[in-house]
């Protein structure tokens, strides 16, 4: 992250921070919920950016860790354990563990094999969730919001919002430090030339696995927050299109910039919300066919939008990462 990225990050976070007072002022509680959702997916997208943007690992199953985090909260709540101090660490631990296992197997491969194997592993857990009748199977299960021993009231929209905000800010800060650290250097260097890193004597596999596990853990946190937000958990959160959407957020916002994916998540969810309305204005019942516009938008971003939204604000040539795989 360069100075510019830090400024963009601070401005973005400030904008998120002033949302609750504004929603109270204009009496629009809907937007509180909406921006809470945006920040949760931003956490997931930022975690993917660590491995996708900085590590060059094109993981196509990242939503699965959100699912694990969400199901950890849901299942604990099902057994009457509502304490967030137990739920959140366990959710992250579970995602870390699965990330470690999937990563250990996936990272033996590379390139397109890696893309497909991460997708397949995600599908595996998706079908597992569907077949677990005890936990709602296909229909999903409801989950009570976590309790933090009276410290934070999760049913209070504003308190919950600032908890998510704090998580996002913390994740951004920690990953920023991580990327700049020696560990981050090794990760980025093995993206650009893994053989050389290997020759220098770095066990790149272990470094990449560590990054993969960290990304999974953070995404698990996003999942735990997501379960709280919806008060509901279903296999849909792990659906492969959801993984694709998180990936789109990263690309849309600007790969390898950390703050870019936050912008990408905002843009994606706002488009998803308002595109149908705009299309409705152009054509009656156009709104239900919003995907016919969304699809070409994605293609256009990939083909022409080098650097994503982040590049609109940052001067050219300073884009953090050049992508190659």
């Amino acid at each position, binding site marked *: 992250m360069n100075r510019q990225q830090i400024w963009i990050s601070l401005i973005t976070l400030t904008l998120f921070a002033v949302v609750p007072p504004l929603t109270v002022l204009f009496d629009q509680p809907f937007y509180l919920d909406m921006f809470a959702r945006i920040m949760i997916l931003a956490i997931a997208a930022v975690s993917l950016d660590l491995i*996708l943007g900085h590590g060059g690992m*094109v993981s*196509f199953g990242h939503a699965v860790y959100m699912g694990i985090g969400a199901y950890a909260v849901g299942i604990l709540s099902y057994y009457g354990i509502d304490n967030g101090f137990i739920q959140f660490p366990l959710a992250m631990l579970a995602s870390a563990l699965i990330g470690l296992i999937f990563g250990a*197997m996936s990272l*033996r*491969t590379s*390139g*397109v*094999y890696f*893309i*497909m*194997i991460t*997708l*397949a*592993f995600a*599908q*595996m857990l998706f*079908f*597992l969730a*569907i*077949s*677990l*009748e*005890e936990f709602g199977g296909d229909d999903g299960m409801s989950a009570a919001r976590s309790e933090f021993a009276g410290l934070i009231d999760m049913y209070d929209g504003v308190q919950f919002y600032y908890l998510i905000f704090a998580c996002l800010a913390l994740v951004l800060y920690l990953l920023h430090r991580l990327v700049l650290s020696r560990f981050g250097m090794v990760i980025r260097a093995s993206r650009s030339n893994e053989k050389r890193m290997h020759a220098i004597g770095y066990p790149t596999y272990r470094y990449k696995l560590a990054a993969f596990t960290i990304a999974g853990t953070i995404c698990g946190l996003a999942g735990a927050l997501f379960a709280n937000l919806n008060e509901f958990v279903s296999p849909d959160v792990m659906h*492969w*299109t959801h993984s*694709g959407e998180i*990936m*789109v957020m990263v*690309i849309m916002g600007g790969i390898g910039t950390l703050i870019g994916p936050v912008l990408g998540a905002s843009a994606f969810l706002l488009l998803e919300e308002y595109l149908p309305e705009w299309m409705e204005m152009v054509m009656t019942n156009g709104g239900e*066919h919003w*995907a*016919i516009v*969304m*699809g*070409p*938008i*994605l*293609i256009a*971003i*990939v*083909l022409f939008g080098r650097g994503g939204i982040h590049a609109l604000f940052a001067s050219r040539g300073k884009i953090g990462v050049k*992508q*190659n*795989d």
Partner: protein
Amino acid sequence: MDPLLLLEQAFNGLQFGVMLFLIAAGLTLVFGIMDLVNLAHGSLVMIGAYLATTLIAWTDSFIFGIALALPATFAVGVLVEVVALRTLYRRNHLDQVLATFGLILFFNEVVRIIWGAQSIYSGLPDYLSGQVEIIPGAPYPVFRLVIIAVGLIVAALIYTIVAHTRLGMLIRAGASNNEMVGALGINIKSLFTFVFALGAVFAGLAGMMLGPLTSVEPGIGEPLLILAFVVIIIGGIGSIRGAFIAAILIGMADTVGRVFLPVLLRIFVSDAAADTAGPALASMLIYILMAAILVVRPRGLFPARTG
């Protein structure tokens, strides 16, 4: 265990396997030659299914409907390649994944606009809807046997084309070094278009045969696409032979596993536990199989190319 049930499930597995092969064949060729990860391949399955259903209803004949739907799918394949995918060959895999993901959204919505979001059903003619006894006492639907036969014929056809014709020679040459093929005076652009459209026809054919088995609805090809990915990973990307063996393996494992895993588990654990764990384990079986194979061979069973 009932041996007749086992036989029936083995045939179902074979039928599922050849269907997966039809989808995986195009995917693996397109990847092997053009180095393109095409998520929208599942959309071609869907488009094939819709075109066939419509054309069968229009011509009022199953055979003519399919016969018209095949060239129509070929045309769609050519169109998609020329308009959308051609620019993606030189991009990295990430870009290809995202752009073709966008294509999926687009195609699903186009289908919803043209045919509606509801499932549509395509019936079978009388001569295909009956049952025959494969061995005395074991009736089996004729149509599923037809699928197996068509699948095996197409597999033989693909093998012959790739291994024994001039086109196949170009395809194999293109897979190992397409720039060199171009430099030798072959029109590489039209070769790519042709190969892609050929893959589209195979995928469409799978969709056409899937239609009468289930119902035709938007997004019908996506679950199959992911299985086809598993197939080409296990088989080794770019390898037709690998795709065939892996497709049959996956088809068998999935179908037979779903039926017999719960039965098998009952031997070891209580009935209640087996009934819960059985379906869960069965739905994960092929992915576990894939992981196991990749631990031993990270590039699949028959790696055709490196990179």
